[in-house]
């Protein structure tokens, strides 16, 4: 009866900070189909990493994604260390966790702000991003970069956090926790916010398993999966409880991430409390050889590095499977049946990182 509406959603679209295109097909006002078009941001980074030596690659790999850059370099370094049988000093492991969890906080806050923006809650966005500056400041002070920390290296970390800064880190944690209380209720309880998130973009547990989604998206659908449980690095010393929700809608994803914020704060504190004295990096000799898979839980979910060395300082293969890459098929299952105005919310609810996806 009526003709289908076909609109391009992206690449240049204000609610998507990153270029991805969804060809949306609407019947009347219901979205019936979405076909993604990617490649707007494909650089060929895997190939380049094979052309640079394995230390230089760290800086490249940090720039796979500007949001979870530290966790990328951490996963990569862990892989190389495993290949070269390097034992990382315990202090470095703990420092890595401090930065990793702070990165998770900053990433989740960023996501939360963008979500607020996607349903037009501008002042909530502003408030959350103001809070996020606190994390950025402490990262800048400890690591030397606001988003590109550049501290992780093979064999440890490049910088230590001196005791006076450790105090500041703890103070920041308290400040953050106090600030969260101002806006978290709005994300979780506000009627208008719930209207936009509850029951929107539902991904059932079955579909979540079948489509292989990861991270908060999977956890919000009731899939128990948090790679930190697998005890890599210093996570071996802490108990990480995966945050699970059953509903699988955008609201459940918010809840999971909100709880992870507090969890991350807790992990930072634990990590500070158990920070051992000693070296924070050890010199590394030789070149990587063999095959290794390194997995790390990023803010968006599990990232997989498949590294293959050949005894030279260049790798044969550096393969990254980023969380958004795994979540895209899940996204395609959420969209059909929603309304056009829900599309931005659903897309943002998986916390897409296209630059990760396409590398």
């Amino acid at each position, binding site marked *: 009866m009526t003709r289908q509406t076909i609109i391009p959603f992206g690449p240049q679209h204000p609610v998507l900070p990153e270029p991805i295109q969804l060809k949306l097909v609407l019947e009347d006002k219901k979205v019936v189909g979405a076909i993604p078009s990617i*490649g707007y941001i494909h650089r*060929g980074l895997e*190939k380049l990493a094979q052309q640079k030596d394995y230390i230089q690659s760290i800086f490249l790999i940090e720039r796979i994604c500007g949001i979870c850059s530290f966790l990328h370099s951490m996963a990569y370094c862990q892989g190389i260390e495993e*290949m070269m049988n390097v034992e990382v000093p315990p202090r470095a492991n703990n420092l890595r966790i401090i930065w990793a969890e702070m990165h998770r906080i900053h990433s989740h806050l960023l996501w939360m702000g963008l979500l607020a923006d996607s349903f037009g809650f501008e002042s909530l966005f502003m408030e959350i991003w103001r809070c996020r500056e606190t994390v950025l400041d402490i990262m800048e002070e400890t690591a030397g970069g606001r988003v590109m920390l550049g501290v992780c290296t093979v064999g440890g970390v490049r910088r230590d956090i001196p005791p006076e800064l450790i105090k500041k880190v703890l103070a920041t944690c308290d400040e953050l926790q106090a600030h969260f209380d101002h806006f978290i209720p709005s994300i979780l309880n506000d009627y208008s916010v719930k209207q936009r998130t509850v029951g929107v973009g539902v991904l059932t547990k079955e579909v979540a398993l079948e489509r292989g989604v990861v991270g908060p998206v999977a956890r919000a659908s009731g899939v128990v999966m948090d790679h930190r449980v697998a005890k890599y690095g210093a996570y071996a010393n802490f108990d990480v409880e995966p945050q699970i929700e059953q509903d699988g809608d955008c609201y459940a994803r918010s809840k999971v991430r909100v709880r992870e914020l507090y969890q991350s704060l807790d992990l930072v504190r634990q990590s500070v409390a158990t920070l051992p004295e000693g070296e924070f990096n050890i010199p590394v000799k030789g070149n990587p050889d063999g095959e290794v898979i390194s997995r790390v839980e990023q803010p968006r979910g599990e990232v*997989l590095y*498949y590294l293959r060395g050949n005894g030279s300082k260049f790798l*044969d293969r550096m393969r990254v499977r980023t969380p958004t890459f*795994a979540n*895209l098929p899940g996204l395609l299952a959420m969209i059909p049946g929603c309304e056009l105005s829900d599309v931005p919310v659903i897309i943002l609810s998986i916390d897409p990182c296209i630059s990760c996806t396409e590398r």
Partner: protein
Amino acid sequence: MITNIIPVTLDTLLSKVGEIFLQKYRLITISCTDLGEYIDVLYHFDKNYEITNLRLRLERGQEVPSISSIYFSAVIVENEIQDLFGVPVKGLVLDYGGKMMLAEASPKAPQANCPAAAPAE
């Protein structure tokens, strides 16, 4: 180091993947490495944080069957392999025809190590 590697051939790939699917494994991804004389394809599956890998040795010019009819989530990665390694993938549920990651004007099969496609270093 990677343990748990099960070698498969082109003929046994689909049946093996089907078996793994029935055991409720999750497909993490497919890694592809061009080793010059042949292409090495690794299928990573996960269950309870344990990885199981299938290793497929692919001769140059061979076509690989798509597992996207079993694991839909393989669509994107298989398209990517098709794009970047120039390995034709047969039976994709959603076939981008080599234009998912790469544009019309991009270099073809850039990650394949064959001399024709390798960029000058």
